[in-house]
């Protein structure tokens, strides 16, 4: 991408062992603002270990992470989120029984007063959620119903909208198009482009080469815990990526 800009997120020489297993060994990873990087690799290649380290789930054994130009230690996922590193999980994202506004604001509800009593400001939650979703061109007819009533793709959009609302600068998406119908997959891929235009850096994990080529700017391949190669998507071809993945 734009090699002149400073990386938004940079992981240098990351190593992680689980018992005797080298999950990651001296892995380097960079992500620029407004860039979509696909993280490719076979099962056990270290994709999820790397994303968990980036999102603060566990610390690396060695190596360091720089975010927005300064060295950071991510103590826990909450710490990473506060800095603007969000992971979009497919199933863990939303409370099905709450409406869209309540989900966008979950854990950070705005309060107002009603005859002196503090009460949750549901009107504001809905209005602000609607504004964020409109910004991303996510059309939901009604925001006052439990998200249970939404489709998988719509829920994914709400989860992404929530991350954006809370100023996420890096979004890690683990198989964001899995288990979605084709129109919904297109919607999520379009949403990724819209986030890109807003300068969000996206780490995109997928097994689906078609999606990887459709969505990403750069492909980073991991194999058995090491960097197996890296290509600009426009100059790569699927066979080459598969060869790097299987070695």
């Amino acid at each position, binding site marked *: 991408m734009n090699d002149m800009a400073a990386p938004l997120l940079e992981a240098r020489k990351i190593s992680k062992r689980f018992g005797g297993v080298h999950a990651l060994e001296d892995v380097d990873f960079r992500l620029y603002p407004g860039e979509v990087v696909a993280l490719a690799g076979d099962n056990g290649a270290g994709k999820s270990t790397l994303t968990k380290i980036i999102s603060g789930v566990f610390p690396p054994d060695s190596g360091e992470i720089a975010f927005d130009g300064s060295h950071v230690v991510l103590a826990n*996922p*909450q710490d990473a*989120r506060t800095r603007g590193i969000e992971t979009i*999980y497919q*199933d*863990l*994202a*939303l*409370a*099905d*029984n*709450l409406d869209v506004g*309540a*989900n966008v604001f*979950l*854990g*950070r*509800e705005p*309060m107002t007063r*009603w005859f002196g*009593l*503090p*009460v*949750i400001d549901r009107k504001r939650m809905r209005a602000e959620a609607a504004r964020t979703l409109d910004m991303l061109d996510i059309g939901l007819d009604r925001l006052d119903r439990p998200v*249970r*009533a939404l*489709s*998988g793709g719509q829920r994914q959009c709400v989860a992404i909208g929530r991350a954006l609302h809370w100023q996420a600068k890096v979004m890690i998406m683990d198989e964001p198009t899995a288990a979605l119908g084709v129109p919904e997959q297109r919607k999520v891929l379009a949403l990724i482009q819209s986030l890109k235009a807003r300068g969000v850096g996206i780490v995109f994990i997928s097994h689906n080469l078609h999606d990887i080529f459709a969505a990403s700017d750069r492909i980073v391949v991991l194999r058995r815990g090491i960097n197996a190669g890296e290509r600009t998507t426009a100059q790569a071809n699927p066979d080459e990526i598969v060869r790097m993945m299987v070695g």
Partner: protein
Amino acid sequence: MSAPAAAHPRPAEQQSNWIGWIAAARAWLFLIVLIVGFEVWSQIAFQATFVGNLFNISSIAVFAVAPLLLAIGQTFVIISGGIDLSVGFTMGFAAVIVSHVANLVTPSLGPVLGLLVAVVVTVAASALPGLVNGLLIARLRVPPFIGTLGMYGVVRGVAYLLAGGTTVPVANDALSYIGNGTIIGIPVVVLLTALAMLVLHYLLSQTRFGQYTYAVGGNRAAAVRAGINVRRVTVLLYILSAVCAGIGGILYAGRFSAGAAQAGEPLLLDSIAAVVIGGASLFGGSGTIVGTLIGALIVAVIEYGLVFINVEPFWQFVAVGIVIIISVLVDQSQRKGGRVDE
């Protein structure tokens, strides 16, 4: 449900507009059907009115107080996806404690101050089983059903031990007034329970704590990820439930001028019945205080109505048990409907 509907799900409103409406209003409808049923029976059998009789209304209200107090605490716990089986004996435990403490301090402090001390001590004591339940469930990941079943045994035993295996008479005028007095014709126990209901309704529907209760029951993992201190919420939920039961015990001691370990024994079933009839799901995530109120009224009308029409009182358990099972079945079928809509 037809196969094409499952293959191409239509929006939820179109598919089950009136079914959904009936399901949502089922508690109200059931209450109305019950009242009409008892009224008709009463007119035919005794040529007397059932609902038109103020004594009946007042009796049903007083009847509903203790199960309702247990049920509003239970509502929070069930919404969060848990269950509290220890509430019945926590109520008895509290009834015994408030009697002992009131007897101990009333001679030196007088009835009002004595009652105040007894109430504070009892509320604190009844929070204890809730705290232990909460810690077991939140910290040690004991399933709520098992953790609170164990606590059921513990508080039961402790309550009987404290009572010396018998009932503890209590002499405190202020406590008796709370149990049997009226204000403008309305029993004080009913007014106090209404107040507790209002406070808990506010807590559940308007505060972050209430919102987190729903979130924990809807998707615990999402609640954790949203930065909600789920363990703390869980501990507070079981303390809340236990304290509600404790207040139920205090009102019981006031009403009967005695504390008994078995005060709340039959009420566990009633409280769970009120919550699930009121529309809460035993799978967590849904329920309201208003729904629980309707549920508790249904239970009270069934129980009082059966006595009124001279049915053997043991049929009450059968009726309430059947109503619980039917409510859960309705809830389950609603859930399956929800899946198809996705």
